[in-house]
Protein backbone atom coordinates (compact mmCIF):
# COMPACT_ATOMS: atom_id res chain seq x y z
CA UNK A 1 0.00 0.00 0.00
CA UNK A 2 1.44 3.28 -1.01
CA UNK A 3 -1.32 5.57 -0.05
CA UNK A 4 -0.09 8.81 1.48
CA UNK A 5 -2.52 9.59 4.21
CA UNK A 6 -1.96 13.33 4.13
CA UNK A 7 -3.01 13.64 0.50
CA UNK A 8 -6.13 11.70 1.04
CA UNK A 9 -9.68 12.86 0.73
CA UNK A 10 -11.87 11.70 3.57
CA UNK A 11 -15.62 11.91 3.68
CA UNK A 12 -17.27 13.53 6.68
CA UNK A 13 -20.83 12.69 7.66
CA UNK A 14 -21.88 16.10 6.39
CA UNK A 15 -20.43 15.20 3.03
CA UNK A 16 -22.05 11.82 3.20
CA UNK A 17 -25.39 13.53 3.74
CA UNK A 18 -24.69 15.76 0.76
CA UNK A 19 -23.91 12.69 -1.28
CA UNK A 20 -27.24 11.10 -0.30
CA UNK A 21 -29.07 14.27 -1.29
CA UNK A 22 -27.37 14.17 -4.68
CA UNK A 23 -28.39 10.55 -5.08
CA UNK A 24 -32.00 11.51 -4.45
CA UNK A 25 -31.72 14.31 -7.02
CA UNK A 26 -30.20 12.06 -9.65
CA UNK A 27 -32.80 9.36 -9.11
CA UNK A 28 -35.56 11.90 -9.41
CA UNK A 29 -34.03 13.22 -12.63
CA UNK A 30 -33.76 9.65 -13.97
CA UNK A 31 -37.15 8.46 -12.81
CA UNK A 32 -38.69 8.21 -16.26
CA UNK A 33 -35.51 6.81 -17.72
CA UNK A 34 -35.23 3.97 -15.21
CA UNK A 35 -38.94 3.32 -15.46
CA UNK A 36 -38.83 3.07 -19.22
CA UNK A 37 -35.93 0.60 -18.98
CA UNK A 38 -38.06 -1.42 -16.55
CA UNK A 39 -41.07 -1.18 -18.89
CA UNK A 40 -39.08 -2.97 -21.58
CA UNK A 41 -38.16 -6.03 -19.54
CA UNK A 42 -39.93 -5.61 -16.22
CA UNK A 43 -42.98 -3.90 -14.84
CA UNK A 44 -42.29 -0.22 -15.34
CA UNK A 45 -41.75 0.81 -11.76
CA UNK A 46 -38.04 0.83 -10.98
CA UNK A 47 -37.57 4.59 -11.40
CA UNK A 48 -40.76 5.33 -9.53
CA UNK A 49 -39.78 3.00 -6.71
CA UNK A 50 -36.27 4.38 -6.31
CA UNK A 51 -37.48 7.96 -6.43
CA UNK A 52 -40.13 7.25 -3.81
CA UNK A 53 -37.55 5.50 -1.67
CA UNK A 54 -34.99 8.29 -1.76
CA UNK A 55 -37.64 10.91 -1.09
CA UNK A 56 -38.40 8.94 2.07
CA UNK A 57 -34.69 8.83 2.82
CA UNK A 58 -34.48 12.62 2.58
CA UNK A 59 -37.33 12.89 5.04
CA UNK A 60 -35.47 10.63 7.49
CA UNK A 61 -32.02 12.20 7.23
CA UNK A 62 -32.60 15.24 9.48
CA UNK A 63 -33.22 12.92 12.41
CA UNK A 64 -29.75 11.36 12.07
CA UNK A 65 -27.67 14.24 10.76
CA UNK A 66 -25.60 14.34 13.92
CA UNK A 67 -25.08 10.59 13.97
CA UNK A 68 -22.15 8.53 12.71
CA UNK A 69 -21.91 7.33 9.10
CA UNK A 70 -22.97 3.81 10.10
CA UNK A 71 -26.18 5.02 11.68
CA UNK A 72 -26.89 7.28 8.74
CA UNK A 73 -26.42 4.47 6.23
CA UNK A 74 -28.48 2.00 8.26
CA UNK A 75 -31.25 4.58 8.46
CA UNK A 76 -31.10 4.94 4.71
CA UNK A 77 -31.36 1.17 4.35
CA UNK A 78 -34.33 0.88 6.67
CA UNK A 79 -36.09 3.75 4.91
CA UNK A 80 -35.52 2.06 1.56
CA UNK A 81 -36.74 -1.32 2.78
CA UNK A 82 -39.93 0.21 4.09
CA UNK A 83 -40.78 2.42 1.14
CA UNK A 84 -39.31 1.03 -2.10
CA UNK A 85 -40.96 -2.37 -2.22
CA UNK A 86 -40.44 -4.69 -5.19
CA UNK A 87 -37.05 -6.28 -5.67
CA UNK A 88 -35.26 -2.95 -5.42
CA UNK A 89 -36.39 -2.33 -1.84
CA UNK A 90 -34.89 -5.33 -0.08
CA UNK A 91 -31.82 -5.28 -2.32
CA UNK A 92 -30.86 -1.63 -1.94
CA UNK A 93 -32.15 -1.63 1.61
CA UNK A 94 -29.89 -4.53 2.51
CA UNK A 95 -27.03 -2.90 0.62
CA UNK A 96 -27.20 0.32 2.63
CA UNK A 97 -27.77 -1.50 5.91
CA UNK A 98 -24.73 -3.70 5.32
CA UNK A 99 -22.68 -0.69 4.25
CA UNK A 100 -23.73 0.96 7.49
CA UNK A 101 -22.58 -2.03 9.54
CA UNK A 102 -19.21 -1.86 7.78
CA UNK A 103 -18.58 1.70 8.94
CA UNK A 104 -20.43 1.64 12.24
CA UNK A 105 -19.32 4.40 14.62
CA UNK A 106 -17.24 6.37 12.10
CA UNK A 107 -17.66 10.07 11.59
CA UNK A 108 -15.10 10.33 8.85
CA UNK A 109 -14.69 7.79 6.07
CA UNK A 110 -11.27 7.13 4.69
CA UNK A 111 -10.85 5.49 1.27
CA UNK A 112 -10.63 2.03 2.83
CA UNK A 113 -13.89 2.70 4.65
CA UNK A 114 -15.56 3.61 1.41
CA UNK A 115 -14.29 0.39 -0.11
CA UNK A 116 -15.42 -1.62 2.88
CA UNK A 117 -18.86 -0.04 2.73
CA UNK A 118 -19.29 -0.67 -0.98
CA UNK A 119 -17.99 -4.18 -0.66
CA UNK A 120 -20.43 -4.89 2.16
CA UNK A 121 -23.21 -3.41 0.08
CA UNK A 122 -22.47 -5.74 -2.80
CA UNK A 123 -22.24 -8.74 -0.48
CA UNK A 124 -25.60 -7.76 0.98
CA UNK A 125 -27.19 -7.67 -2.45
CA UNK A 126 -25.77 -11.08 -3.31
CA UNK A 127 -26.78 -12.55 0.04
CA UNK A 128 -30.35 -11.31 -0.41
CA UNK A 129 -30.87 -11.90 -4.12
CA UNK A 130 -28.51 -14.79 -4.86
CA UNK A 131 -27.75 -13.48 -8.33
CA UNK A 132 -24.58 -14.55 -10.12
CA UNK A 133 -22.49 -12.35 -12.34
CA UNK A 134 -24.07 -12.39 -15.79
CA UNK A 135 -27.63 -12.86 -14.55
CA UNK A 136 -28.45 -9.33 -15.80
CA UNK A 137 -28.98 -7.60 -12.47
CA UNK A 138 -27.52 -4.78 -10.42
CA UNK A 139 -24.80 -7.25 -9.40
CA UNK A 140 -23.36 -6.83 -12.89
CA UNK A 141 -22.75 -3.14 -12.26
CA UNK A 142 -21.79 -3.34 -8.59
CA UNK A 143 -19.25 -6.15 -8.88
CA UNK A 144 -16.94 -4.47 -11.43
CA UNK A 145 -17.32 -1.21 -9.51
CA UNK A 146 -16.13 -2.70 -6.24
CA UNK A 147 -13.32 -4.55 -8.02
CA UNK A 148 -12.17 -1.39 -9.78
CA UNK A 149 -12.29 0.61 -6.55
CA UNK A 150 -10.23 -1.98 -4.73
CA UNK A 151 -7.69 -2.24 -7.55
CA UNK A 152 -7.30 1.52 -7.85
CA UNK A 153 -6.79 2.00 -4.15
CA UNK A 154 -4.31 -0.87 -4.10
CA UNK A 155 -2.49 0.79 -6.98
CA UNK A 156 -2.20 3.99 -5.00
CA UNK A 157 -4.89 6.09 -6.54
CA UNK A 158 -6.65 8.65 -4.40
CA UNK A 159 -10.30 8.21 -3.52
CA UNK A 160 -11.51 10.58 -6.21
CA UNK A 161 -9.60 8.79 -8.93
CA UNK A 162 -10.52 5.39 -7.53
CA UNK A 163 -14.23 6.25 -7.43
CA UNK A 164 -13.95 7.60 -10.96
CA UNK A 165 -12.63 4.20 -12.03
CA UNK A 166 -15.36 2.46 -10.06
CA UNK A 167 -18.00 4.55 -11.81
CA UNK A 168 -16.45 3.82 -15.21
CA UNK A 169 -16.46 0.12 -14.40
CA UNK A 170 -20.06 0.29 -13.24
CA UNK A 171 -21.02 2.04 -16.43
CA UNK A 172 -19.31 -0.65 -18.48
CA UNK A 173 -20.97 -3.33 -16.35
CA UNK A 174 -24.32 -1.68 -16.90
CA UNK A 175 -23.81 -1.60 -20.65
CA UNK A 176 -22.64 -5.19 -20.60
CA UNK A 177 -26.07 -6.21 -19.33
CA UNK A 178 -27.59 -5.30 -22.71
CA UNK A 179 -26.73 -8.52 -24.57
CA UNK A 180 -27.31 -10.67 -21.49
CA UNK A 181 -30.19 -13.11 -21.08
CA UNK A 182 -31.81 -12.36 -17.72
CA UNK A 183 -31.78 -15.21 -15.23
CA UNK A 184 -33.00 -13.43 -12.12
CA UNK A 185 -35.87 -11.12 -11.32
CA UNK A 186 -38.81 -10.26 -13.45
CA UNK A 187 -36.84 -9.91 -16.69
CA UNK A 188 -35.99 -13.61 -16.57
CA UNK A 189 -39.61 -14.40 -17.53
CA UNK A 190 -39.02 -12.86 -20.91
CA UNK A 191 -36.44 -15.47 -21.85
CA UNK A 192 -34.76 -14.53 -25.13
CA UNK A 193 -36.79 -11.35 -25.27
CA UNK A 194 -34.77 -9.90 -22.40
CA UNK A 195 -31.73 -9.76 -24.69
CA UNK A 196 -30.95 -6.35 -26.12
CA UNK A 197 -32.21 -4.32 -23.19
CA UNK A 198 -30.20 -2.64 -20.45
CA UNK A 199 -31.03 -3.78 -16.93
CA UNK A 200 -32.78 -1.08 -14.89
CA UNK A 201 -31.24 -2.16 -11.58
CA UNK A 202 -27.73 -2.16 -13.05
CA UNK A 203 -28.48 1.30 -14.34
CA UNK A 204 -29.60 2.69 -10.99
CA UNK A 205 -26.52 1.12 -9.39
CA UNK A 206 -24.29 2.86 -11.90
CA UNK A 207 -26.07 6.16 -11.29
CA UNK A 208 -25.49 5.90 -7.53
CA UNK A 209 -21.79 5.16 -7.93
CA UNK A 210 -21.53 7.93 -10.50
CA UNK A 211 -22.87 10.30 -7.83
CA UNK A 212 -20.22 9.11 -5.39
CA UNK A 213 -17.46 9.80 -7.93
CA UNK A 214 -18.90 13.21 -8.79
CA UNK A 215 -19.26 14.23 -5.18
CA UNK A 216 -15.68 13.13 -4.46
CA UNK A 217 -14.39 15.18 -7.40
CA UNK A 218 -16.34 18.20 -6.22
CA UNK A 219 -14.96 17.93 -2.69
CA UNK A 220 -11.47 17.48 -4.06
CA UNK A 221 -11.82 20.61 -6.18
CA UNK A 222 -13.06 22.57 -3.18
CA UNK A 223 -10.13 21.37 -1.04
CA UNK A 224 -7.53 22.22 -3.66
CA UNK A 225 -6.78 25.90 -3.62
Amino acid at each position, binding site marked *: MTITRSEELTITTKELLMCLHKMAEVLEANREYL*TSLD*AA*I*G*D*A*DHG*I*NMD*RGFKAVLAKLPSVEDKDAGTILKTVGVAL*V*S*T*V*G*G*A*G*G*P*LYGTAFMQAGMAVAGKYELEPQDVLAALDAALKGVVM*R*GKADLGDKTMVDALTPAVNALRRALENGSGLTEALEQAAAAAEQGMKDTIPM*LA*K*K*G*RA*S*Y*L*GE*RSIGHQDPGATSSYLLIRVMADVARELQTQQEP
Partner: protein
Amino acid sequence: MKKLINHPANVVKEELEGIALAYPGLVKVHFEPNFIYRADAPIPGKVAVISGGGSGHEPMHGGFVGVGMLDAACPGEVFTSPTPDQMLEAAKMVHGGAGVLYIVKNYTGDVMNFEMAADMARAEGIRVLNILIDDDVAVKDSLYTAGRRGTGTTVLAEKICGAAAERGYDLKRVADLCRRVNINGRSMGMALTPCTVPMAGKPTFELAEDEMEVGIGIHGEPGRERMKLKTADEITEMLALAIIEDPPYRRTVREWDEEKAEWVEVELEDPPFRPGDPVLAFVNSMGGTPDIELPIVYRKLHEICTKKGLKIVRNLIGRYITSLEMQGVSITLLRMDDEMIDLWDAPVKTPGLRWGM
Protein backbone atom coordinates in the same frame (compact mmCIF):
# COMPACT_ATOMS: atom_id res chain seq x y z
CA MET B 1 -53.77 8.13 -19.61
CA LYS B 2 -57.45 8.05 -18.73
CA LYS B 3 -58.29 6.98 -15.23
CA LEU B 4 -60.76 7.79 -12.51
CA ILE B 5 -58.09 9.06 -10.15
CA ASN B 6 -57.06 12.31 -8.57
CA HIS B 7 -53.29 12.10 -8.61
CA PRO B 8 -51.22 9.07 -9.63
CA ALA B 9 -49.28 9.19 -6.37
CA ASN B 10 -52.49 8.99 -4.30
CA VAL B 11 -54.21 6.09 -6.02
CA VAL B 12 -53.48 3.42 -3.43
CA LYS B 13 -54.06 5.70 -0.46
CA GLU B 14 -57.42 6.92 -1.73
CA GLU B 15 -58.45 3.43 -2.77
CA LEU B 16 -57.81 2.29 0.80
CA GLU B 17 -59.77 5.23 2.19
CA GLY B 18 -62.68 4.21 -0.01
CA ILE B 19 -62.46 0.60 1.10
CA ALA B 20 -62.47 1.64 4.75
CA LEU B 21 -65.66 3.65 4.16
CA ALA B 22 -67.29 0.98 2.01
CA TYR B 23 -67.01 -2.12 4.22
CA PRO B 24 -66.85 -0.88 7.81
CA GLY B 25 -68.33 -3.98 9.41
CA LEU B 26 -66.16 -6.33 7.44
CA VAL B 27 -62.69 -4.85 7.16
CA LYS B 28 -60.58 -2.09 8.62
CA VAL B 29 -57.70 -0.25 7.03
CA HIS B 30 -54.43 0.69 8.69
CA PHE B 31 -52.39 3.47 7.11
CA GLU B 32 -48.63 3.90 7.16
CA PRO B 33 -47.84 1.16 6.93
CA ASN B 34 -50.81 0.23 4.75
CA PHE B 35 -52.79 -2.94 5.26
CA ILE B 36 -56.40 -4.10 5.19
CA TYR B 37 -57.52 -6.44 7.95
CA ARG B 38 -60.57 -8.22 9.26
CA ALA B 39 -62.72 -6.01 11.42
CA ASP B 40 -62.99 -8.81 13.99
CA ALA B 41 -59.27 -9.63 14.14
CA PRO B 42 -57.41 -10.92 16.05
CA ILE B 43 -59.36 -14.12 16.56
CA PRO B 44 -57.77 -15.93 19.49
CA GLY B 45 -56.50 -19.38 18.63
CA LYS B 46 -57.03 -19.00 14.89
CA VAL B 47 -54.15 -19.12 12.41
CA ALA B 48 -53.93 -15.77 10.65
CA VAL B 49 -53.69 -15.97 6.87
CA ILE B 50 -52.01 -12.95 5.33
CA SER B 51 -51.15 -12.16 1.78
CA GLY B 52 -50.09 -9.13 -0.16
CA GLY B 53 -48.53 -7.90 -3.31
CA GLY B 54 -48.53 -4.97 -5.62
CA SER B 55 -51.79 -3.11 -6.12
CA GLY B 56 -53.51 -3.18 -9.49
CA HIS B 57 -54.71 -6.79 -9.18
CA GLU B 58 -58.01 -5.97 -7.50
CA PRO B 59 -60.00 -7.57 -6.02
CA MET B 60 -56.86 -9.55 -5.03
CA HIS B 61 -55.71 -9.33 -2.25
CA GLY B 62 -57.53 -6.60 -0.31
CA GLY B 63 -60.90 -7.72 -1.66
CA PHE B 64 -60.35 -11.16 -0.15
CA VAL B 65 -60.03 -10.00 3.43
CA GLY B 66 -62.94 -11.11 5.56
CA VAL B 67 -64.57 -14.11 7.09
CA GLY B 68 -63.30 -17.42 5.71
CA MET B 69 -60.46 -16.02 3.65
CA LEU B 70 -57.65 -13.57 4.51
CA ASP B 71 -57.07 -11.99 7.89
CA ALA B 72 -55.03 -9.24 6.31
CA ALA B 73 -53.67 -8.07 2.99
CA CYS B 74 -50.74 -5.76 2.36
CA PRO B 75 -51.07 -3.67 -0.79
CA GLY B 76 -47.91 -2.26 -2.33
CA GLU B 77 -47.81 0.52 -4.84
CA VAL B 78 -49.27 -0.46 -8.21
CA PHE B 79 -47.41 -3.58 -9.43
CA THR B 80 -44.78 -3.16 -6.72
CA SER B 81 -44.35 -5.61 -3.89
CA PRO B 82 -45.29 -4.21 -0.49
CA THR B 83 -42.62 -3.70 2.14
CA PRO B 84 -41.69 -5.83 5.16
CA ASP B 85 -42.97 -3.29 7.68
CA GLN B 86 -46.47 -3.57 6.21
CA MET B 87 -46.36 -7.35 6.51
CA LEU B 88 -44.91 -7.21 10.00
CA GLU B 89 -47.45 -4.72 11.32
CA ALA B 90 -50.28 -6.66 9.70
CA ALA B 91 -49.08 -9.83 11.41
CA LYS B 92 -48.87 -8.08 14.76
CA MET B 93 -52.38 -6.69 14.32
CA VAL B 94 -54.20 -9.88 13.33
CA HIS B 95 -52.34 -12.84 14.78
CA GLY B 96 -54.37 -14.67 17.37
CA GLY B 97 -51.57 -16.61 18.98
CA ALA B 98 -51.76 -19.58 16.63
CA GLY B 99 -49.25 -18.30 14.13
CA VAL B 100 -49.32 -16.59 10.77
CA LEU B 101 -49.24 -17.98 7.24
CA TYR B 102 -47.84 -15.64 4.63
CA ILE B 103 -49.11 -16.64 1.18
CA VAL B 104 -46.51 -15.25 -1.20
CA LYS B 105 -46.62 -15.05 -4.96
CA ASN B 106 -43.29 -16.06 -6.45
CA TYR B 107 -41.83 -12.77 -7.64
CA THR B 108 -38.34 -11.81 -6.54
CA GLY B 109 -39.62 -8.70 -4.79
CA ASP B 110 -42.49 -10.36 -2.99
CA VAL B 111 -40.33 -13.28 -1.91
CA MET B 112 -37.55 -11.12 -0.47
CA ASN B 113 -39.89 -8.70 1.28
CA PHE B 114 -41.97 -11.49 2.83
CA GLU B 115 -38.83 -13.31 3.96
CA MET B 116 -37.57 -10.18 5.68
CA ALA B 117 -40.99 -9.68 7.26
CA ALA B 118 -41.10 -13.26 8.50
CA ASP B 119 -37.67 -12.88 10.10
CA MET B 120 -38.77 -9.65 11.76
CA ALA B 121 -42.05 -11.17 13.00
CA ARG B 122 -40.24 -14.19 14.44
CA ALA B 123 -37.86 -11.81 16.16
CA GLU B 124 -40.96 -10.42 17.86
CA GLY B 125 -42.08 -13.87 18.90
CA ILE B 126 -44.74 -14.56 16.28
CA ARG B 127 -44.72 -17.96 14.57
CA VAL B 128 -44.66 -17.42 10.83
CA LEU B 129 -44.50 -19.73 7.81
CA ASN B 130 -44.20 -18.55 4.23
CA ILE B 131 -45.66 -20.61 1.40
CA LEU B 132 -44.93 -19.69 -2.19
CA ILE B 133 -47.40 -19.83 -5.05
CA ASP B 134 -45.62 -20.54 -8.34
CA ASP B 135 -48.16 -21.83 -10.83
CA ASP B 136 -47.59 -20.04 -14.13
CA VAL B 137 -46.73 -22.64 -16.77
CA ALA B 138 -45.71 -19.89 -19.20
CA VAL B 139 -42.39 -20.04 -17.35
CA LYS B 140 -40.88 -23.32 -18.39
CA ASP B 141 -37.84 -23.77 -16.19
CA SER B 142 -36.64 -22.57 -12.82
CA LEU B 143 -32.94 -22.92 -13.56
CA TYR B 144 -32.69 -19.98 -15.91
CA THR B 145 -35.46 -17.89 -14.43
CA ALA B 146 -36.66 -16.71 -11.05
CA GLY B 147 -39.05 -19.69 -11.27
CA ARG B 148 -42.71 -19.80 -12.13
CA ARG B 149 -44.73 -16.76 -11.22
CA GLY B 150 -47.61 -16.83 -8.80
CA THR B 151 -50.89 -16.16 -10.60
CA GLY B 152 -54.43 -17.57 -10.53
CA THR B 153 -53.80 -20.34 -8.01
CA THR B 154 -53.17 -17.62 -5.43
CA VAL B 155 -56.87 -16.76 -5.31
CA LEU B 156 -57.82 -20.39 -4.85
CA ALA B 157 -55.15 -20.95 -2.18
CA GLU B 158 -56.35 -17.92 -0.25
CA LYS B 159 -59.93 -19.19 -0.29
CA ILE B 160 -59.07 -22.75 0.66
CA CYS B 161 -56.50 -21.90 3.31
CA GLY B 162 -58.72 -19.16 4.69
CA ALA B 163 -61.51 -21.69 5.13
CA ALA B 164 -59.10 -24.13 6.78
CA ALA B 165 -57.90 -21.52 9.24
CA GLU B 166 -61.49 -20.58 9.99
CA ARG B 167 -62.17 -24.23 10.79
CA GLY B 168 -59.34 -24.29 13.30
CA TYR B 169 -56.53 -26.05 11.39
CA ASP B 170 -53.19 -25.40 13.06
CA LEU B 171 -50.40 -23.48 11.34
CA LYS B 172 -48.54 -26.49 10.03
CA ARG B 173 -51.70 -27.97 8.57
CA VAL B 174 -52.73 -24.74 6.87
CA ALA B 175 -49.23 -24.35 5.44
CA ASP B 176 -49.16 -27.96 4.21
CA LEU B 177 -52.55 -27.45 2.61
CA CYS B 178 -51.37 -24.27 0.93
CA ARG B 179 -48.36 -26.09 -0.50
CA ARG B 180 -50.68 -28.84 -1.71
CA VAL B 181 -52.97 -26.36 -3.43
CA ASN B 182 -49.95 -24.76 -5.06
CA ILE B 183 -48.45 -27.92 -6.49
CA ASN B 184 -51.84 -28.97 -7.84
CA GLY B 185 -52.63 -25.69 -9.53
CA ARG B 186 -51.41 -24.44 -12.90
CA SER B 187 -52.19 -21.25 -14.79
CA MET B 188 -51.49 -19.37 -17.98
CA GLY B 189 -52.61 -15.98 -19.24
CA MET B 190 -52.67 -13.79 -22.31
CA ALA B 191 -53.30 -10.14 -23.10
CA LEU B 192 -55.14 -8.39 -25.91
CA THR B 193 -54.11 -4.96 -24.66
CA PRO B 194 -51.51 -3.57 -22.27
CA CYS B 195 -52.35 -1.53 -19.18
CA THR B 196 -51.11 1.77 -17.81
CA VAL B 197 -49.49 2.09 -14.39
CA PRO B 198 -50.80 5.42 -13.04
CA MET B 199 -47.35 6.66 -12.03
CA ALA B 200 -45.87 5.68 -15.39
CA GLY B 201 -48.65 7.38 -17.34
CA LYS B 202 -48.24 5.33 -20.47
CA PRO B 203 -48.95 1.73 -21.48
CA THR B 204 -46.42 -0.87 -20.37
CA PHE B 205 -46.06 -2.12 -23.93
CA GLU B 206 -47.55 -1.60 -27.34
CA LEU B 207 -49.49 -4.09 -29.39
CA ALA B 208 -50.74 -3.75 -32.95
CA GLU B 209 -54.44 -4.15 -33.67
CA ASP B 210 -53.87 -7.74 -34.77
CA GLU B 211 -51.43 -8.86 -32.09
CA MET B 212 -51.62 -10.39 -28.67
CA GLU B 213 -49.18 -11.32 -25.92
CA VAL B 214 -49.24 -14.90 -24.68
CA GLY B 215 -47.72 -16.10 -21.43
CA ILE B 216 -48.00 -12.83 -19.55
CA GLY B 217 -47.74 -12.36 -15.83
CA ILE B 218 -49.99 -10.02 -13.91
CA HIS B 219 -47.85 -6.89 -13.94
CA GLY B 220 -48.43 -5.55 -17.41
CA GLU B 221 -45.11 -7.02 -18.47
CA PRO B 222 -44.86 -8.42 -21.98
CA GLY B 223 -45.38 -12.17 -22.22
CA ARG B 224 -43.27 -15.02 -23.51
CA GLU B 225 -44.42 -14.56 -27.05
CA ARG B 226 -46.16 -12.04 -29.22
CA MET B 227 -48.38 -13.50 -31.89
CA LYS B 228 -51.18 -12.74 -34.31
CA LEU B 229 -54.57 -12.43 -32.75
CA LYS B 230 -56.53 -15.68 -32.71
CA THR B 231 -60.13 -16.64 -32.00
CA ALA B 232 -61.38 -17.23 -28.48
CA ASP B 233 -61.46 -20.97 -29.14
CA GLU B 234 -57.89 -21.04 -30.40
CA ILE B 235 -56.66 -18.93 -27.50
CA THR B 236 -58.49 -21.09 -24.98
CA GLU B 237 -57.07 -24.22 -26.50
CA MET B 238 -53.55 -22.82 -26.46
CA LEU B 239 -53.75 -21.88 -22.78
CA ALA B 240 -55.63 -24.99 -21.68
CA LEU B 241 -53.32 -27.43 -23.43
CA ALA B 242 -50.22 -25.68 -22.06
CA ILE B 243 -51.69 -26.27 -18.61
CA ILE B 244 -53.08 -29.77 -19.07
CA GLU B 245 -50.05 -31.14 -20.90
CA ASP B 246 -47.49 -29.46 -18.68
CA PRO B 247 -44.96 -32.09 -17.56
CA PRO B 248 -43.97 -32.54 -13.90
CA TYR B 249 -42.40 -29.29 -12.71
CA ARG B 250 -39.55 -29.58 -10.24
CA ARG B 251 -37.82 -26.75 -8.36
CA THR B 252 -36.50 -25.84 -4.96
CA VAL B 253 -38.14 -23.14 -2.89
CA ARG B 254 -37.08 -21.56 0.38
CA GLU B 255 -39.25 -22.34 3.35
CA TRP B 256 -38.72 -21.78 7.04
CA ASP B 257 -37.86 -24.93 8.96
CA GLU B 258 -39.30 -24.53 12.44
CA GLU B 259 -37.23 -27.32 13.94
CA LYS B 260 -33.92 -26.16 12.55
CA ALA B 261 -35.01 -22.54 12.97
CA GLU B 262 -33.57 -21.60 9.62
CA TRP B 263 -34.52 -21.13 5.98
CA VAL B 264 -34.10 -24.37 4.06
CA GLU B 265 -34.33 -25.32 0.41
CA VAL B 266 -37.29 -27.59 -0.16
CA GLU B 267 -37.65 -29.58 -3.34
CA LEU B 268 -41.15 -29.58 -4.80
CA GLU B 269 -42.70 -31.30 -7.77
CA ASP B 270 -46.02 -30.51 -9.42
CA PRO B 271 -47.61 -33.74 -10.64
CA PRO B 272 -49.07 -33.46 -14.14
CA PHE B 273 -52.80 -33.71 -14.83
CA ARG B 274 -54.19 -37.16 -15.57
CA PRO B 275 -57.49 -38.32 -17.05
CA GLY B 276 -60.02 -38.68 -14.28
CA ASP B 277 -58.66 -35.80 -12.22
CA PRO B 278 -61.38 -33.69 -10.61
CA VAL B 279 -60.54 -30.02 -11.21
CA LEU B 280 -61.64 -26.54 -10.38
CA ALA B 281 -61.71 -24.52 -13.63
CA PHE B 282 -61.00 -20.85 -13.15
CA VAL B 283 -61.49 -18.40 -16.02
CA ASN B 284 -60.20 -15.00 -15.00
CA SER B 285 -60.50 -11.66 -16.74
CA MET B 286 -57.31 -9.61 -16.71
CA GLY B 287 -59.49 -6.64 -15.81
CA GLY B 288 -60.68 -4.93 -18.96
CA THR B 289 -62.18 -7.93 -20.69
CA PRO B 290 -65.94 -7.66 -20.42
CA ASP B 291 -68.00 -10.36 -18.71
CA ILE B 292 -69.71 -11.31 -21.96
CA GLU B 293 -66.49 -12.86 -23.24
CA LEU B 294 -65.69 -15.08 -20.26
CA PRO B 295 -68.42 -17.71 -20.81
CA ILE B 296 -67.19 -18.00 -24.40
CA VAL B 297 -63.80 -19.02 -23.05
CA TYR B 298 -65.34 -21.24 -20.38
CA ARG B 299 -67.41 -23.04 -23.02
CA LYS B 300 -64.29 -24.07 -24.91
CA LEU B 301 -62.37 -24.87 -21.74
CA HIS B 302 -65.18 -27.16 -20.66
CA GLU B 303 -65.02 -28.96 -24.00
CA ILE B 304 -61.26 -29.41 -23.79
CA CYS B 305 -61.31 -30.63 -20.19
CA THR B 306 -64.02 -33.10 -21.06
CA LYS B 307 -62.04 -34.35 -24.03
CA LYS B 308 -58.95 -34.73 -21.84
CA GLY B 309 -60.87 -36.65 -19.20
CA LEU B 310 -60.68 -33.91 -16.57
CA LYS B 311 -63.86 -33.57 -14.57
CA ILE B 312 -64.76 -29.98 -13.68
CA VAL B 313 -66.17 -30.24 -10.17
CA ARG B 314 -66.14 -26.52 -9.36
CA ASN B 315 -65.58 -23.34 -11.31
CA LEU B 316 -64.90 -19.67 -10.85
CA ILE B 317 -65.51 -17.20 -13.66
CA GLY B 318 -64.92 -13.48 -13.39
CA ARG B 319 -62.38 -10.85 -12.45
CA TYR B 320 -60.33 -11.98 -9.48
CA ILE B 321 -56.65 -11.40 -10.22
CA THR B 322 -56.25 -8.58 -12.67
CA SER B 323 -53.74 -6.25 -14.26
CA LEU B 324 -55.56 -2.93 -14.03
CA GLU B 325 -57.58 -2.38 -17.23
CA MET B 326 -55.69 -4.94 -19.31
CA GLN B 327 -57.90 -6.94 -21.67
CA GLY B 328 -57.14 -10.61 -21.71
CA VAL B 329 -57.78 -13.77 -19.82
CA SER B 330 -56.03 -16.33 -17.69
CA ILE B 331 -57.00 -19.91 -17.07
CA THR B 332 -56.21 -21.85 -13.93
CA LEU B 333 -56.88 -25.53 -13.35
CA LEU B 334 -56.60 -26.85 -9.83
CA ARG B 335 -56.69 -30.57 -9.13
CA MET B 336 -59.12 -30.94 -6.25
CA ASP B 337 -59.47 -33.53 -3.54
CA ASP B 338 -62.43 -33.94 -1.20
CA GLU B 339 -60.90 -31.82 1.52
CA MET B 340 -60.18 -29.01 -0.92
CA ILE B 341 -63.70 -29.17 -2.35
CA ASP B 342 -65.18 -29.06 1.09
CA LEU B 343 -63.07 -26.04 2.05
CA TRP B 344 -63.84 -24.35 -1.27
CA ASP B 345 -67.55 -24.67 -0.53
CA ALA B 346 -67.21 -23.30 3.00
CA PRO B 347 -68.85 -19.93 3.64
CA VAL B 348 -66.85 -16.85 2.72
CA LYS B 349 -67.67 -13.20 3.15
CA THR B 350 -65.28 -10.72 1.62
CA PRO B 351 -65.82 -7.74 -0.69
CA GLY B 352 -64.55 -9.77 -3.65
CA LEU B 353 -65.80 -13.30 -3.02
CA ARG B 354 -68.88 -14.21 -1.08
CA TRP B 355 -71.17 -17.13 -0.54
CA GLY B 356 -72.87 -19.08 2.21
CA MET B 357 -73.15 -15.99 4.42
